């Protein structure tokens, strides 16, 4: 089952999870997950709650044992080591700062445990606090800091012992939106600056898209798709990914014909669309099609052969965009998003107006399941 780690793997692959299974009694939390996380990568485990992403992170940290399979850290098998023997550190969701210690002692703790003298540990901890701009709070107790400040202390504490890999378990979920956005950038920046591999767990797809080099989308203990943010947004493999990442029009279609790598799909109500054919989806299959709302536009006259005729039901103003809900003639509802900055080029129609919905080339994708 276990292949030999190659020398190049040893340097390039920070964490190698091989066929990892986690069972709690009869319940299987993780079903045979395999993935390789590269050195110096900002890697995100993304999925709804209960998908197994936190379980996987805790298995890498050593808080959960691995029912089956193996985990390698730069080529060394680690799944049987206790957490204090693994050179990885964690930023916990609730921060888990030691309440009876000062901020400085919190940050110095890991350094001290790794054998640094108390004075050295404190000096280095001071430098870490400078990095996260909290030097002036070093003598305070955690309870005297705000949530955002505690968050940065947790980060400094986990980074201080210079771990090979930093694990972050939904660290931003307790912060308000504005602070969260600022921290996202700060985290990304810290990752670049330190060169440490980050493994980030979140249920927030926008956060994942913003920060990650690569994302593993998980659901029900299985990995649904692994790829760059562009990959999983533009080319979702299946319905779950298309639906979970961003907003999309998910349509039930039947494939009527395939020619020259293009599939002709029937939407119901006499509407037809063509899109790139997908291996494994043949003529006669009933599948789903995903079209992102921002890749649709409206016009009074059909601009292409594929303009779909319908009537505007409602316009919703959401700040940067206007979301238009369109009812196709005897067909499904469509959501069309028009950027406010694009209003000069693209038309907005009043509710009740009849119009055509058009699609940018390559916007529609057939999904396997």
């Amino acid at each position, binding site marked *: 089952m276990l292949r030999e780690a190659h020398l190049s793997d040893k340097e390039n692959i920070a964490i190698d999870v091989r066929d990892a299974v986690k069972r709690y009694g009869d319940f299987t939390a993780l079903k045979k997950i395999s993935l390789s996380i590269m050195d110096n990568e900002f890697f995100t485990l993304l999925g709804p709650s209960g998908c197994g992403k936190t379980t996987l992170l805790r298995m890498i*940290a*050593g*808080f959960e044992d691995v029912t089956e399979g193996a985990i390698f850290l730069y080529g060394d098998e680690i799944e049987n080591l*206790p*957490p*204090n*023997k693994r050179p*990885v*550190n*964690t930023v*916990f969701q*609730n921060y*888990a*700062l*030691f*309440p*009876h210690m*000062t901020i400085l002692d919190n940050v110095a*703790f*890991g350094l001290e*445990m*790794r054998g640094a003298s108390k004075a050295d540990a404190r000096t280095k901890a001071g430098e870490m606090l400078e990095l996260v701009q909290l030097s002036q709070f070093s003598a305070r107790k955690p309870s005297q800091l705000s949530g955002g400040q505690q968050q940065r202390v947790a980060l400094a*504490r*986990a980074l201080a*012992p210079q771990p090979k890999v930093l694990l972050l378990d939904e660290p931003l979920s307790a912060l308000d939106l504005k602070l969260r956005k600022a921290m996202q950038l700060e985290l990304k920046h810290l990752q670049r600056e330190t060169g440490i591999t980050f493994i980030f767990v979140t249920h927030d797809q926008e956060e994942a898209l913003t920060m990650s080099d690569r994302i593993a989308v998980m659901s029900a203990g299985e990995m649904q798709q692994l790829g760059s943010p562009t990959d999983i947004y533009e080319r979702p493999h299946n319905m779950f990914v298309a639906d979970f990442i961003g907003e999309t029009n998910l349509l039930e279609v039947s494939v009527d014909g395939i020619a020259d790598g293009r599939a002709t799909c029937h939407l119901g109500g006499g509407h037809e669309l063509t899109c790139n054919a997908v291996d494994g989806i043949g003529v006669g299959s009933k599948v789903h099609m995903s079209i992102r709302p921002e890749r649709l536009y409206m016009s009074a006259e059909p601009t292409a052969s594929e303009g779909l005729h319908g009537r505007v039901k409602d316009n919703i103003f959401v700040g940067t965009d206007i979301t238009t809900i369109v009812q196709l003639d005897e067909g499904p509802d469509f959501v069309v998003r028009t950027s406010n900055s694009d209003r000069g080029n693209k038309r907005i129609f009043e509710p009740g107006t009849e119009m055509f919905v058009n699609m940018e080339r390559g916007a529609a994708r057939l999904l396997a399941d």
Partner: protein
Amino acid sequence: MAAGAASGGSATTDTYKEARTWLLLPAWVTLCILILAPVLMMLVYSFLTKEFRGGVIWEFSLAAYDQFFFDRGLFGDDPPKIEWTYIAIFWRSIWQAGAATLLSLVIGFPTAYFIATRAENMRPVWVFLITIPYWVNLLIRTVSMKFLLRDQGPLNDFLINIGLIDSPLHIVNTNFAVQLGLFYSYLPFMVLPIYAAVERYNFNLSEAAADLYASKWTTLRRILLPAVKPGVIAGCILVFVPSMGSFLAPDLLGGAKNFMIGSLIEEQFKGNAGNWPFGAAASMILLTMVLIILMIFARQQAKAEKSGG
């Protein structure tokens, strides 16, 4: 209260104050009858003159305290020397209670930790199991303990049978037997407050410590213990204080040689041979000692907290 005063004049405030007085009354009455009155009575009695065959004569006297601290010879006319007998009994009481507290802590802490780390629905079951023996009267439990520990008792039989010892261990009538008796009498008072503290403990902190390369022992010492310290202190006080004044365990398990302050006081109020003012004086001295020990403890605690320990 401020809002009430602003809108409805002083009537609302007065009603509120009156209600508070009445509602607090039961608490005050209980405190006075059960705590203040007995202590005051004891204080008064300790300054009265003893009546032979028990009881007191209502005449002010310092004889009880004098008897406790000074030796004036058989007829009371020698120059006063310090009387060591009672001070020694006091010292032994502190020592025995301290040992029993330590024993309770060593056994009680892991027990409490064990209970607090069980599944949530099993914790009340374990707490219940811990308290079951305490439904039996203390006297009966202590006598049973003597039976178990005596030279021909089940413990010695067992140890001889498995070949660990050749002749019975003499446990009854030793200091250790008393410590064992006190430990057994008050163990739940150690377990329950520590259990409550550990149950509130955020085990994420232990994970964080392990994540930061701390061993299990270091995590216990540097993270868990400081977090549950209030529970440990409460447990120690709850075991130490009643152990100091206990007389059943020392009487039944310790014999005449291992007399403790509780037994001394009990003797003074028993039958016709007693000396009520002397018993009251010894009680007051015991109370003062306990308070002093607790105050020293509290002060050191505050100091440790201040220095950021």
